[in-house]
């Protein structure tokens, strides 16, 4: 109690209070998120005080929208969001799993068991489950030509929990093709090379994959072409605007002539740079039926735009830094930082460069490229909240495909893994454990069942019946998952329901760690704020 002496205002919650505070917070968070889980879950529409609408079925988005106050809940939320950042999915499952571990522990603790013993059991069970996962997973050989069907099954499983079926199926093809497009052998997949662009226009089903790049700006000169076929692409990071250089930045000139001379000299050097680009264009486009487009990361001022327009060149300025990389991957050539040694080798090529105008927003499509290694998923939707929701789903889908390729393994879904792992823990691991830690293993095993239970609950099925049926099948040696439409056991392999291996592993790893920490808290001390006050 020395801390209390140090700061008499600090409030101290004693052991049982602290524990129950943690358990209640975890259960509370679970309650909020559990209706989200699975393809039969509920979508949440949040309407803000100013009438802003947000639609989400994604645990990650929902957590970020919530005003969480309880320190325990914040800790769980942080873990769940970190889960999303590292593996791309499983936020809702993490929160539910931690909540369930706490709930199961509560039973034992109320009967007088020390949390320490439970935590020991968790640790044993966690290690055993991870080993079991290694055995249980379905290895997939990726090689040079990954099996598209398997990737599609994983992506479809992820997307169908976020979007209605036909849209999910449409996006499945899009995300799989997108990842395969940017994939290079022997290199990690950089999902940033898939640009995700949105247009507030038409309907969600108009969402499509553009092999090439879509930029959210257009040329800034009235005389430049809006549409060009057979286009050479120059990607550069060269300033084509007149600017005062840092060196002779003095404000005062001894005479007006001197100042004019300096301005003129600066201007001339910009013009020279522009001329070099025009020279290159004239060289490669001599045959007359090809075009030329410049994508510059730096600015291009009106005089330079004028010169370029007169030479028949399309020029876009201030392109996103990342688009420089994407353009080169999509069209070929290389990004140049100076125009001094321009050669035709630096140039990429695109079959079509096309500008599209929507109100004040302009989009430039660079399409029909040869052999692209970068692409754009163009999301369309009638309003911002639809777009935002599709965007979240697309991100999840992309991550699921990437994970599958990198894990070279997948896990049977629809709750099959959880039930199998639970039976393994109860029937085999528990016996090898001595003493009361057995109960910890049991609590852990029962907590695993929360996923099929909630899937069943969200589908309006009877949880008890479902669990009994599923465990029964497993004890007979059949690996089955839950058919959400009928409540019958199904073979997830046949139904094509697969989850990511790395998501599951991360989930089993992080859940018990946080739960253990929360269980072992025996005092909560916080200065300056009253915790018991309802917030």
């Amino acid at each position: 109690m020395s801390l209390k002496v140090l700061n008499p205002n600090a409030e101290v919650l004693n052991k049982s209070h602290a524990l129950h505070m943690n358990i209640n917070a975890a259960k509370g968070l679970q309650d909020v998120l559990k209706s989200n889980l699975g393809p039969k879950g509920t979508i949440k529409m949040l309407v803000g005080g100013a009438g802003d609408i947000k639609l989400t079925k994604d645990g990650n988005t929902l957590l970020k929208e919530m005003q969480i106050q309880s320190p325990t809940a914040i800790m769980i939320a942080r873990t769940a969001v970190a889960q999303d950042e590292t593996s791309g999915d499983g936020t809702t499952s993490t929160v539910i799993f931690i909540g369930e571990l706490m709930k199961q522990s509560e039973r034992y603790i109320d009967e007088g068991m020390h949390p320490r013993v439970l935590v020991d059991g968790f640790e044993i069970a966690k290690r055993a489950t991870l080993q079991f996962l290694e055995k249980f997973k379905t290895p997939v050989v990726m090689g040079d030509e990954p099996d598209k069907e398997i990737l599609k099954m994983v992506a479809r499983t992820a997307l169908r929990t976020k979007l209605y079926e036909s849209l999910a199926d449409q996006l499945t093809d899009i995300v799989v093709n997108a990842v395969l497009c940017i994939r290079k052998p022997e290199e990690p997949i950089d999902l940033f090379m898939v640009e995700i662009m949105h247009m507030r226009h038409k309907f969600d089903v108009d969402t499509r994959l553009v092999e090439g790049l879509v930029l959210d700006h257009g040329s800034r000169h009235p005389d430049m072409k809006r549409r060009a076929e057979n286009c050479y692409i120059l990607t550069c990071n060269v300033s084509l605007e007149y600017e005062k250089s840092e060196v002779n930045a003095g404000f005062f000139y001894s005479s007006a002539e001197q100042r004019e001379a300096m301005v003129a000299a600066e201007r001339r050097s910009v013009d020279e740079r522009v001329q070099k680009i025009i020279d290159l264009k004239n060289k490669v486009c001599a045959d007359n039926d090809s075009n030329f487009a410049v994508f510059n990361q730096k600015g291009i001022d009106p005089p330079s735009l004028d010169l370029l327009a007169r030479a028949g060149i399309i020029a876009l300025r201030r392109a996103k830094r990342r688009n420089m990389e994407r353009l080169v991957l999509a069209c070929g050539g290389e990004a140049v930082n100076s125009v001094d040694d321009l050669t035709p080798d630096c140039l990429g090529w695109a079959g079509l460069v096309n500008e599209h105008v929507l109100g004040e927003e302009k989009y430039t499509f660079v399409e029909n490229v040869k052999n692209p290694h970068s692409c754009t998923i163009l999301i369309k939707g009638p309003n911002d909240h639809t777009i935002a929701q599709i965007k979240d789903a697309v991100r999840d889908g992309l991550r699921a495909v990437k994970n599958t390729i990198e894990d070279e393994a997948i896990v049977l879904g629809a709750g099959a893994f959880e039930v199998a792992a639970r039976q393994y823990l109860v029937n085999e691991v528990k016996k090898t454990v001595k003493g009361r830690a057995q109960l910890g293993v049991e609590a852990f095993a029962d907590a695993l069942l929360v996923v099929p239970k909630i899937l069943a609950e969200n589908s309006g099925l009877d949880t008890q019946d479902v669990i009994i049926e599923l465990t029964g099948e497993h004890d007979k040696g059949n690996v089955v998952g839950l058919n959400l439409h009928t409540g019958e056991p199904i073979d997830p392999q046949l139904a094509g329901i697969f989850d990511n291996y790395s998501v599951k592993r991360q989930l089993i790893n992080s859940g018990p760690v946080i739960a253990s920490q929360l269980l072992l808290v025996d005092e909560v001390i916080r200065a300056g704020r009253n915790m018991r006050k309802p917030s």
Partner: protein
Amino acid sequence: MREIVTIQAGNYANFVGSHFWNFQDELLGLADSTESDQIFKSHGLNMDVLYRPGETQQGILTYTPRLVSMGLRGSLGSMSSHGTLYKEIQEAQVGSLTWTGPVTTQTSQPLQKNLFLQSLDWEENSNVDRLGAYENEQNEAHAEIQDKDIVESLENDIQYWTDFSKVHYHPQSLYELCGLWTDSKDFNNYGIGREAFSGGLHAEQVNDRLRFFLEECDHPQKGYQTFATLTFKGIQFIVDDSGGFSGVAGEVLEIIADDYPNIPVLLYSVRSPDSCLDPSHRKLTIARRLHNAVSFAKQSALCKLIVPIGLPSLSTSKMSKYLYLEDRKPYHTSAVYASALHSISLPFRMEPHGPSAQYVSTSGAVTMNDLIQILAGQGCQNMVAVLDASMPAPALTGTGFQQPLLETLQPLTPETAEDVEDMQALESMIIHGAFASGSERASVCEVTEAVQAAYTNAVRRPKFSHLSVAQCPLPIPLPYPSIFGKFVGERGELLNTQVSDSSSSRGSLEVHSVPMAARLRSSIAILPFLDNRLQNLRKLGIARGALGSEILGSWGFGRDDVEDIGETLSDMVTKLNPRSEASSDSD
């Protein structure tokens, strides 16, 4: 045209910004109105510098500020983050198109719009279907009743900066930082802001918005052809640096430095009076002092000119002679700072005159880049400027009891030294809407001459002074707080006798415009400000066994980083005061 993009970060910065944009909106309105004074109609200012023309998807033309504003989630009050102009296509069913399963809806209690915002909505609707004179009359009657109530209701409960904003914002302008899970009270240091911003997609999204406004900025052709004016775009950045947004701003400044290295940034770091109070808790005091040092050093390293703004108490400053200010109301204090920022921004927008122009309404146009060169590019290269303002500015030839204009300038920068002799001082002053004597507007030449005369007679003179003059005074929009005293007349002139009025202070209904003077100066007066930060950092952060090194560590600054920050600060001090090095090393 010399486009300026404005960035506002943090709640108090948005308060200041809200007033700032209200002035611009008022100027736009007055220029269009048939009834207004000649000085408003030909104010000689190019509004395109701060505003952008646009078009909604329905083809309606818009004119909105080039602005990126950042705030905490929920800081927008009853305003939608998409602004009001760009309405979405009304979807038949609001329900989810993307999900066929069950939907649960959680609706927050809609925030009640205050009288002022209600009257804006009402006006907008009645503009659309104005039928005839009869209804016009009714409008006026309606407006008359309401104006007084509006002013009163604004005076009494302002909670969000949007409560008194009459400006339409572009949907890309308002950015809310969500997913922080901290109380706004706990979002109070550089470290937490930096961490919050770097996680997730915040940096990318803010950069996209900034790019949206910067990409469309041109460099003028005219400047190039005539060589008359060197023209540059710039970024004016208002940050509430008393809390976590200081860290956010640091990250945004880094993005700007990386992606747009040639665009000058003029940074105003504003803070409200209550954030200047020392907290009661000792540990918090240490954290606050370290935050001040770190935040200042980090931000100054990434901009071209930094202007710290925010006195611990405005109500006890020189300003209180003519203004009734309540320090605890951010609505009041931010209005004063916004007025000064408005004045400083005028020279960036002045149109160059042809020699044939008969009616000269402005003189002394500078670009942001030139201003930065004037103050920070010569002499001792000091990039920290002091902001002074006089509001309302007295007449040029004051009668008896009125102080001369130069003496009424009140520093709005905290911790400055008064009455220092600095032979190296550089300054840029703007006077607009000043009166010659009594209530007669002075012409541009008169003001120039008067200031020159004042400087010739002054004991202390700066080494270099640039003067900009405009005829157009500060227009007082309806939602401006009632802060004027009883000696201030309808056009902001200073009266000899009190206005006999029942209320204690006068507001936008009684005072319609105000003459202003504002000045940025680079001088050794800023030394105490720099010294305090340097000493605090040395004592609490760098010294062996310093109390605050753990706090700095938790903000993500290692020992080397802290020493670098100390180096930055001590460099700034040495530039202004070469002798200081010896004394500070000895302790």
